[in-house]
């Protein structure tokens, strides 16, 4: 029987609260668990099963159990390893920049100034558009011959030649990361702003009176109190970005020559172009395992969401 320990004052007289607390606690979780079971858990289990078979849709006669065959093929697939490297660059490049700039934005938006509500709303805008449309728009902006970015930079004299941002293997990843950062800053800005708003002013006042300067207050009050939210926001964002292939699919198609091919876009390609669902399922499972391992390690290192003092 699992034990449930709660911090509660000892002076309270209680009668068989243990079982009741357990049930109440779990009952809070039931709606959430049910949503997930129905929509996600079952398909994931099915996909794990699918990865153990040779499942190429247009060769139904070859359908058979091959155990770890897909996984062995994966290990020897150079594009897979390349995509894994690209994924790391994609994820960490995007999230770190999003976090830094998002945090800066949140701090700015916390200040009192006129029109603050409007600016906060404006900061939210990049997030509202569907990823596919963001990809289309930015692909248009990046277009070397008639895109605004090249045009502006040349007119402002910062550039003399047109750069093909998305067609050059060296710049393509940087370009899509930049777009992803544009899109992702609002997430951190809003989340961290909410966290900042929950910090009581009295703490700052008291520290100020004690002679702490701005940076010291930030380091000793703001950051520790915000830590659970920072950890949660970055963890969820990392997971999300790992799986986020929309921008890349639309803007570069994984190219040029696989320079921006991340594992999740490679999975999509295998599933819907090559119709090799067995292999695609194996890729997804590997990605799942990688992300689970990473998240577990990440939570350990940042000491999870344990409460702050």
């Amino acid at each position, binding site marked *: 029987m699992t034990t*449930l320990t709660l911090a509660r004052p000892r002076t309270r007289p209680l009668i068989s609260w243990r079982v009741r607390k357990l049930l109440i606690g779990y009952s809070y979780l039931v709606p959430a668990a049910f949503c997930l079971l129905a929509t*996600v*858990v079952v398909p994931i289990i099915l996909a794990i099963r699918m990865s153990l078979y040779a499942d190429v849709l247009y060769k139904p006669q070859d359908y058979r159990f091959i155990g770890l065959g897909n996984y062995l093929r994966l290990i020897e697939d150079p594009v897979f390893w390349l995509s894994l490297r690209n994924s790391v660059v994609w994820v960490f490049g995007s999230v770190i920049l999003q976090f830094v700039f998002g945090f800066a934005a949140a701090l700015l938006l916390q*200040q009192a100034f006129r029109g603050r509500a409007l600016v906060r709303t404006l900061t939210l*805008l990049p997030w*509202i558009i569907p990823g596919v449309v963001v990809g289309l728009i930015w692909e248009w902006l990046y277009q070397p011959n008639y895109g605004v970015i090249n045009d502006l930079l040349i007119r402002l004299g910062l550039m003399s030649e047109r750069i093909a941002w998305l067609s050059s293997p060296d710049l393509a990843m940087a370009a899509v990361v930049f777009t992803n950062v544009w899109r992702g800053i609002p997430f951190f800005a809003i989340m961290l702003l909410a966290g900042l708003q929950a910090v009581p002013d009295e703490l700052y006042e008291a520290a100020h009176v004690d002679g702490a300067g701005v940076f010291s207050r930030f380091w000793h009050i703001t950051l520790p109190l915000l830590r*659970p939210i920072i950890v949660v*926001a970055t963890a969820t964002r990392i997971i999300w970005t790992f799986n986020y292939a929309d921008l890349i699919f639309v803007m570069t198609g994984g190219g040029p020559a696989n320079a921006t091919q991340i594992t999740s876009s490679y999975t*999509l390609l295998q*599933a819907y172009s090559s119709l090799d669902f067995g292999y695609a399922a194996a890729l997804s499972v590997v990605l799942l395992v990688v992300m689970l391992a990473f998240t577990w390690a990440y939570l350990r290192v940042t000491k999870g969401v344990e409460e702050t003092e």
Partner: protein
Amino acid sequence: MKRRARKDIAERLLAGPVVWIGLVLLTAFALGPFIWMLLTSLKDRQELYATPLQYLPVHPTFQNYVEAWTSPVTPFSRFFLNSLWVCSVTMVATTVVSVLAGYAIARFRFAGRDALLLIFLATQMFPSVLLIAPLLTQWRALGLIDTYQALIYSNFSFTVPFTVWMMVGYFSSIPRDLEESAMIDGCNHFGALCRIVLPLAAPGIAATAIFAFVVSWSELLFAISFTTETSMRTLSAGLLYMVGQYEVQWGQLSAGVILSTVPVAVLFTFLQRHLIHGLTAGAVKG
């Protein structure tokens, strides 16, 4: 009573010009492409294709907006209402579910808590594209194709995990003593949740609610996969109708983008003002 202490130089500097420069840069960066979209949406075809690139429309026209909104073949007004309904319901339901679940995970210590958190997140580690086929079968079997329910339930698959995590984070940053003192005064957990924790976590809840709304507003794949009739499509799917086989209709796409961002902006402003004030009204800070 607040005592005003003197500000040091660093503080004055940061509060003044740095903030202003920062805000200007932030707004310019976020808004840049939108301004371009706005200008594009006001241009007619000739100006759109002019070389060299034309920035300001010489003859601004609202034709793109009119066509987008009233076209019977791509009824934006209809798409808009579909999106509004689906996303509102998703937002409300997700917030309720995640507040409960988040509170339980943040406050109750039980075995397998960390594993549960990880599982919640793990469901997000799977490409949603591969979920389509089994989900399609499921909805079809339940007769839910071309209904709002299929979209709403499918949206849960990605809003609930993240919002639960978010709420765990926000609840964890609220010190327990407040609830404990409330419970000493005689209320149970649920009462403490409502009276003490919710007001303090109000900004977090608002942020999570807007998150759920925005994420489902921009959701595309499920909307296309689980609906067949044009009348049931959402705004995101509607925007893609502007992508033709050989050209993207930039004028109308831009108009559609502007049209689809306005309501979310309005909702966000509303949430900021009223939801937070509503939740915090009557709360007593310790």
